[in-house]
């Protein structure tokens, strides 16, 4: 998975089929070093039959409470996210989706509910390369973005939106009644997986905000405030100290920064694509969602 090797053990008979579907393009390795040794297991004995649960393990220890068995795949994905966000401190880690086209990446930072995964999936369905729907992994020394393409987690209404946008997209099983509602994972494009070793430069930092019924609006955001917001969305910048601050600064320095408010996925995708095709990075607010150069 990008720069990480994950070794997974499980006693769930339904898991291999799901993994073959969603991780079809990933390399399997038999015996090499693994960054994370994880497990996803149902309890043994009669307990398996009474309100079936599943538990995530890291190094044979369960960091979380068990969840209903129907949440197995989301739990695996969340568990791997947790492993990365708490342990991969060789990178500056920002809670953000990242996609790239023509060597230039859009970083979409945001807390859950901001719509970053939906926008990310939408852009990927329109040909952008997926780096991650969850983490911007930034190399502290040069500010470059390290891809970690994995299945994109879609929730509730986003599932239908993406299915309508890209009926050909490969979706995993639907996990209902998770603590995030209904969750479905979309298989990452083969090309994104095969190019996972190819780093990218950030060119745009866009803070998405979904507001039902609102027209699309792209507003320039000051770099100083972008740095502060990125720090709030980072898992470990203060752990990295001055290197973390320098990496945040590099990322902001090389990017044009925006707020994106939208109530319609297609409008938001159109505005982001216009932004990316502008000769000069756009810098100013546009009233009708069109992009003007600086």
């Amino acid at each position: 998975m990008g720069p990480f090797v994950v070794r997974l053990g499980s006693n769930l008979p339904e898991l291999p089929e799901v993994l073959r579907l969603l991780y079809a393009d990933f390399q399997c390795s038999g015996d090499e070093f693994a960054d994370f040794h994880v497990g996803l297991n149902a309890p043994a004995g009669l307990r398996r039959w009474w309100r079936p649960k599943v538990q995530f393990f890291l190094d044979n220890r369960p960091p979380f409470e068990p969840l209903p068995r129907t949440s197995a795949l989301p739990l695996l994905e969340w568990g791997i996210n947790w492993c990365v966000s708490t342990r991969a401190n060789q990178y500056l880690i920002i809670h953000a989706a990242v996609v790239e086209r023509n060597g230039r990446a859009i970083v979409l930072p945001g807390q859950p509910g901001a719509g970053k995964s939906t926008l990310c999936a939408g852009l990927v369905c329109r040909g952008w390369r997926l780096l991650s729907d969850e983490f911007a992994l930034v190399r502290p020394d040069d500010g470059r973005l390290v891809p970690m393409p994995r299945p994109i987690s879609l929730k509730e209404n986003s599932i239908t939106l993406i299915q309508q946008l890209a009926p050909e997209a490969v979706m995993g099983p639907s996990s209902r009644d998770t603590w995030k509602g209904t969750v479905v994972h979309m298989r990452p494009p083969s090309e994104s997986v095969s190019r996972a070793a190819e780093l990218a430069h950030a060119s745009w930092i866009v803070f998405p905000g979904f507001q039902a019924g609102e027209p699309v609006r792209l507003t320039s955001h000051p770099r100083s405030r972008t740095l502060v917001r990125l720090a709030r969305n980072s898992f470990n910048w203060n752990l990295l100290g001055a290197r973390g601050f320098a990496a945040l600064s590099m990322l902001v320095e090389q990017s044009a920064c925006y707020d994106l408010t939208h109530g319609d996925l297609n409008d938001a995708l159109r505005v982001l694509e216009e932004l990316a095709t502008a000769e000069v990075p756009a810098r100013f607010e546009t009233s009708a969602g069109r992009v003007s150069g600086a």
Partner: protein
Amino acid sequence: LLWRRWDQEFVVFDPRSGDIHLFDPLAAEVLRRLDVSSATVDELSRELDVSLGHEAELDLAQYVAKLVGEFDKLGLIEPASVDVR
């Protein structure tokens, strides 16, 4: 302290606390001065008055005293020892 400036705002990283702060140019001017050496509120006010070309309409001493209090609360500065001569 580590500084970055974009447009008219300053971002300051304090390596001791790991905190990031956002300041306008006036606050940044005062903090930069204190980052070099200690000074009293009167000294800071006089120097800021010079920097502003003696055109400040606001009560500079009161403004600087408030700023210094905020810097202290944020752990960016600490009282200097009094030079008794």
